[in-house]
């Protein structure tokens, strides 16, 4: 007899957990029940019936995948009868019309193994099989191998939130449908590949897979090198080639899922354009030199400039694309050897406003939540972010949460994909966040409705409520709405949305990259506090980080006013730690930010700049100023994989190892530190960034014993330097816990922190900020009727140096200027026309795409192609506190290109 709470499977007592299927319980107990249409983590289809089991008391066998196990149940998973049934079912499938039985049986697939295990040999191949659909760069469908199990359909809907597939006909003729015309290219497919991973019969396959002979390939567990989501990947390699990339099934971040870029866009790794030897400028050209020569040249020039002009004349940008260890070591070197705090990274030009605002209001300048809160959230607000394109795997998780019933509000000038799924879309004028958020705060406080604001939370955990309430009460709602370009009904709906309770605020560069960047985030935090969201499950602030390790770069101290772990330069305890670990402490006075360094370079005050894998010449605003700064330098050293626009202007270019070619750690947007592992050797003489930093240090006089430093030892030093944040992080723990650790993680027993401020704010009480909206220097300029926003699209990544060297080009063409239909009609512009886009800072010629996604009066432009020169047009305006540039609002006008 079974005890209560137990069932028996093949005579063995197993514990019953509520909601478990027979299949799940059996698998936990070690029984293998064959399955075909069942996909782990997917809703049961229950159609193939291969997983039939016998249950005492049931009139007929039950499908184990979709039958709930109950206490007292007696289950048989293996019997002659079941074998005959399963065999009969498999015979029906294998001999179904239109299928190529011979190929189905001989492939290396789940289905072929099922056939073999049940002694099923398909009778014939059906020669009338339909043509293979292969108009897509990555995906292929072979109908003669499709058993219509529908796992692809479930995967598409339940992982990507997409509906590319359906089924046509009925009965035996039921067959897979793809989009409107059996063609992935002409469907909503985003090429995430989830369907391929789930296909059990080889009908859906990857076009790009280079087939290795079994046993010859190697698999390396690592982290994706594209955006800041931080998906765990398994990199399959053969010798020095990346063959294929897969998502790691059990990864906390991505659960096996990837986007097109992460999964397929790796051909750049073997591009012939990779840099393989150090290059030294000789006149207008470059000459290849040895590493010894290169390091000696760099060390000599830096030492000479330091000797002549002091540390203030030297600056360094660490790379948000590279590892924590690389960033840390390079920042340490410049802070100690040259006594300069001119240390920064590209976080400056993305989330510096966010970090500053979150630190000021809550005490910690990073996400207060984890991705896991997405599935718990009842309400999600997306503000100034476009996750389904810029952070696709996270975007899919948000879309899934919405499809499963979460409420959604999107605040964005563009009708981004998620806006189509939103309860409320607020298409505010670019740059007007503060006006709109203040208007919402005013409404929430003024509302008499019970629970519109969380008064208990405010009383216990927040300071400054009375002053804030008075401040917003003094604001003129009509003026706020006019500034934001929003009508009263939309405000009503937005306020109503937030009055329903705590929300998860997913925010991005549409807040941060403005003159009022810090104020935008502070005023969003105000809403987070009024609704009692921060520190709660399924709620809080979740800034999405743009680059794979931009969070880590800031964490490592790649900031002119902070050292590792956000420790202040004037903190005596931190200085003592520096002296202990580094031998000396950096200057107390903060250094220059990226824009300030470029300005100082143009002015002749900054003479040497070391850039570790960044391309400000293409990516930073107001190209003419950036280039003027770079070209005025006495010494520009660039570590790069390709000869980028910035590298072309360098005096010394050092060939860099890619994400597939070096060891270290990345930290994602939820503060999760994960291990990156070399899967192949770098091409030619390219070197890992951390090693270059170490060897440069030795060339500059650091102790020779440092040549023993490796990434693990570097991280140990990081942990000692910033124990409150990273004291408990070590490679031993990161290797054992494959999902890594989320900082703060203070000691070896600390499991890390998924949700900050849960038991109390780091700064004591959180702060409400009274900040009024003001127009930026780009608003209301006569003769410039548009506000230009720049940003990313799905299939390319930043400056495009990687994605433009892959088949992504077949999925997305060059940069296009998006224009609203009404504006296009008024200007007499058609889709595909070339126009001159002009601001007060520069002009470019660009092709137009007319789309209702964009609000009238707004323009949107991607910046993925250097030929576009998008940043020639973008304003040099900055947030005065964070120095984050205003990419998200530049006054612009359109003209006709000159006739030739």
């Amino acid at each position: 007899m079974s005890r209560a709470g137990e069932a028996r499977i093949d005579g063995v007592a197993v514990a019953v957990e509520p909601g478990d299927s027979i299949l799940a319980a059996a698998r936990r107990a070690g029984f293998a029940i064959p399955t075909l249409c069942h996909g782990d983590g997917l809703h049961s289809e229950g159609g193939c019936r291969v997983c039939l089991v016998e249950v005492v008391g049931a009139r007929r066998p039950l499908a184990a995948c979709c039958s709930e196990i109950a206490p007292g149940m007696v289950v048989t998973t293996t019997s002659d009868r079941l074998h005959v049934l399963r065999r009969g079912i498999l015979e029906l499938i294998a001999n179904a019309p239109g299928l190529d039985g011979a190929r189905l049986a001989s492939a290396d697939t789940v289905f072929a193994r099922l056939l073999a295990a049940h002694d099923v040999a398909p009778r014939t191949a059906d020669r009338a099989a339909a043509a293979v659909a292969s108009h897509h760069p990555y995906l292929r469908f072979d109908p003669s191998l499709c058993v219509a199990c529908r796992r692809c359909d479930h995967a598409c809907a339940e992982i990507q939130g997409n509906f590319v597939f359906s089924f046509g006909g009925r009965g035996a003729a039921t067959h897979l449908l793809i989009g409107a015309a059996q063609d992935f290219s002409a469907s909503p497919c985003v090429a995430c590949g989830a369907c391929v991973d789930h296909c059990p019969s080889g009908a859906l396959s990857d076009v790009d897979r280079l087939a290795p002979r079994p046993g010859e390939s190697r698999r390396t567990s690592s982290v994706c090198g594209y955006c800041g989501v931080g998906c765990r990947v398994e990199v399959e390699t053969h010798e020095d080639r990346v063959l294929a990339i897969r998502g790691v099934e059990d990864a906390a971040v991505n659960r096996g899922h990837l986007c097109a870029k992460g999964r397929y866009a790796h051909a750049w790794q073997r591009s012939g354009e990779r840099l393989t030897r150090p290059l030294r400028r000789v006149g207008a050209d470059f000459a290849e030199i040895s590493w010894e020569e290169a390091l000696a040249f760099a060390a000599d020039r830096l030492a000479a400039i330091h000797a002549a002009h002091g540390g203030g004349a030297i600056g360094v940008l660490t790379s948000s694309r590279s590892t924590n260890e690389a960033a840390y070591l390079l920042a340490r070197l410049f802070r100690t050897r040259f006594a300069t705090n001119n240390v920064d990274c590209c976080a400056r030009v993305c989330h510096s406003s966010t970090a500053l605002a979150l630190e000021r209001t809550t005490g910690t300048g990073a996400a207060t939540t984890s991705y896991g809160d997405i599935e718990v959230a009842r309400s999600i607000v997306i503000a100034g972010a476009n996750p389904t394109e810029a952070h696709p795997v996270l975007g899919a998780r948000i879309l899934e949460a919405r499809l499963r019933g979460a409420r959604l509000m999107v605040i964005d000038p563009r009708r981004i994909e998620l806006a189509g799924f939103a309860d409320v879309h607020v298409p505010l004028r670019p740059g007007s966040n503060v006006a709109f958020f203040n208007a919402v705060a005013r409404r929430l406080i003024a509302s008499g409705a019970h629970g519109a604001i969380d008064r208990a939370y405010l009383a216990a955990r927040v300071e400054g409520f009375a002053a804030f309430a008075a401040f917003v009460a003094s604001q003129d709602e009509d003026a706020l709405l006019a500034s934001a370009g929003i009508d009263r009904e939309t405000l009503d709906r937005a306020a109503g949305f937030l009055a329903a309770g705590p929300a998860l605020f997913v925010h991005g560069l549409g807040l941060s990259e403005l003159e009022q960047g810090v104020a935008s985030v502070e005023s969003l935090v105000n809403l987070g506090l009024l609704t009692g969201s921060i520190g709660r499950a399924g709620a809080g602030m979740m800034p999405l980080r743009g680059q794979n390790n931009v969070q880590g770069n800031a964490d490592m101290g790649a900031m002119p006013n902070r050292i590792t772990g956000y420790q202040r330069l004037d903190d005596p305890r931190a200085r003592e730690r520096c002296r202990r670990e580094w031998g000396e402490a950096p200057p107390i006075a903060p250094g220059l930010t990226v824009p300030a360094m470029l300005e100082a370079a143009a002015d002749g005050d900054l003479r040497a700049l070391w850039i570790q894998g960044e391309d400000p010449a293409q990516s930073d605003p107001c190209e003419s100023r950036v280039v003027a700064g770079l070209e005025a330098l006495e010494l520009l050293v660039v570590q790069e994989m390709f000869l980028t626009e910035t590298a072309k202007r360098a005096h010394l270019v050092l060939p860099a190892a890619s994400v597939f070619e070096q060891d270290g750690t990345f930290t994602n947007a939820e503060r999760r530190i994960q291990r990156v592992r070399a899967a192949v050797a770098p091409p030619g003489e390219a070197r890992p960034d951390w090693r270059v930093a170490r060897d440069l240090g030795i060339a500059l006089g650091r102790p020779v014993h440092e040549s023993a430093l490796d990434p693990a030892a570097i991280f140990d030093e990081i942990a000692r330097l910033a124990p409150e944040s990273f004291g408990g992080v070590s490679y031993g723990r990161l290797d054992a816990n494959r999902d890594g650790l989320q900082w703060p993680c203070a000691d070896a027993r600390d499991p890390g922190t998924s949700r900050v401020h849960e038991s109390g704010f780091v700064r004591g009480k959180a702060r409400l900020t009274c900040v009024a909206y003001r127009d930026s220097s780009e608003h209301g300029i006569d003769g410039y009727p548009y506000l230009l926003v720049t940003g990313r699209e799905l299939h390319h990544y930043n400056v495009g140096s990687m994605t433009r060297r892959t088949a992504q080009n077949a999925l997305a063409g060059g940069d296009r200027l998006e224009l609203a239909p009404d504006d296009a009609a008024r200007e007499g512009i058609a889709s595909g026309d070339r126009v001159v886009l002009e601001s007060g800072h520069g002009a470019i010629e660009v092709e137009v795409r007319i789309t209702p996604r964009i609000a009238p009066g707004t323009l949107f432009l991607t910046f993925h192609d250097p030929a576009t020169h998008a940043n020639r047009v973008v304003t040099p305006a900055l947030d005065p506190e964070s120095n984050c540039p205003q990419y998200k609002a530049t006054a612009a006008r359109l003209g006709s290109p000159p006739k030739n």
Partner: protein
Amino acid sequence: LVAPAADTLGERLETRSSPAMKRLERQSAGARHQDEGKAATMQHEDVTVSAYRHARGASGSPLTALAAFAAATAGRSVGAGEIEAFAAELDLPAAAVRGALSFYSDASASAADARRVCEGLSCRIAGAVPAREIANARGVHCLGFCDRSPAVLDARGDVHVGDEARRIVAAPGPPSAAKAVDPPPPPAITSLASRAIVTRRIARGDFSDLGTARADGAYSQLERALRRPPSFVLDEVERSGERGRGGAAFATAVKWRACARAATPDVRYVVANGDEGDPGSYVDRLLLELDPHGVLEGLALAAYASEASGGIVFIRSEYPRAFQVMRRAVVAARAAGVLGPSVLGSSFAFDVEVFPGMGSYVCGEETALLNAIEGRRGEVRLKPPYPATHGLYGRPTVVNNVETLVDVPAILELGADAYRRLGTTDCPGTKALSLNHGFARPGIVEIEFGTRLEEVVAAAGEGPDGAPIEALVLGGPMGCVLPRSRFVARLVYGRESAPDVVLGHGGIIALPRDVDAAALFDSALTFFRDESCGKCVPCKLGARELAARFRKDAASATSPGFSALLEVIEAGSLCAFGSEMPRPLRQWLQLFAPRISRREPE
């Protein structure tokens, strides 16, 4: 349609005390009062195209638009651009539109094939010419005129029966040539029960007019119930022991109670299942045409008891007249304040939409029917979750057969105690049987549960010439084939029914002495092959394999391989369409093996 799809131990063991159902009831009862209700429902949440539409802010059903698109594009190829534009308009993915349209017979039929020729069992026996031999026609499984077979539905929506039907299909020329005709008169409607319940109104004529119906007492029980709490209706129906008349015989009040307790606050639905697909039964057609207000009153009472506010009547496209009559009845009821924000002046808000089917037998199964209303492919869903908690658009939904709903006002009028005195203890009440033209007196016969089949056959006067009927088909294609020796069997749902006897929805087709059993066996196989929804392998591929083998070699029907395949289909199929398919096939073979296996191959 017979028993609903069920893939749980609970429902298989014993329908009435299903532990899975009880567990759900308990969960939902608790969850209703908790803020975390959403978490409890999420575990079953399937991410469907309906979730996609809902998240995009689309409301209502796309079914009517799909049906209109299908009609507008019938008989020509539809380009990808056209599909995409239409899909965008409906907020549906393009593939989902293609998938739904290709599922339904009506949508894939050519516009030229506007005439629908009944190829149901009764019409086949009457010697109906198959559609493939007729110009501008397509076959359908039943038009519900089995008392006057054969039957043809013309392009105008008019039905022709008997010799007129034969004449029309023989005449050449375009389908529009058919002149408007009066509908065939209703069949004889009689009762063997001590009291007529479901036929109480239709036996006396046409009550489709609201005034006529109200003069006969329609909506008086609703009016009375609205003065009492919903629990009054629920308790009364529970005590009556009423079971679903569609064939599954599930306890009506259990569904209602589960729906009323389910933890979704925004809306609950009740659906009248007017997808009477079983070839051979036609009582639902008559109820919809002659007593639509009886259906609506039952539906409103079901809604009141289940705390639902949305009502739907789903009517198969083979019943165009029933559809028109019901639409008019709803408009009239709404205009009279019987439906709407204040039903009969009460605080109860309830309104009804009428939706057309698009040609699929399986849509009579409740979850397939819900998918059809959502504009999806009419395939069965896995259960649990049951519609009572996760039904239309994932909302708690009660699906009741038309006949069940017409019973409900009568139960309230009589009172549960009096009602229970009809029928048997385990299965109280009455059931309408549909007798085909193979009887001397065809038509509807209402009986009390427990009545012996032989009493019905005797009352109908045996065969047309009075000669004894030797065999008949009872309960539709998933029902049973019974020889005269089994006419002693009692007609009843549940444990009192003999294992070889399936009452189903109560259709009875007498088999003539010289019946071409091989042709009927073949047509049964064709029916199973063509109507399998395609959701599960044993049914969709097994039915095709059976038909293919039999066509190739009739002798294979008696082979061990055929029998083994029947076992795979019976044991392996997901829903009752598959699991109930083998029994009647075996019974055909038992009775007529020599005739069936000697058939010449095609």
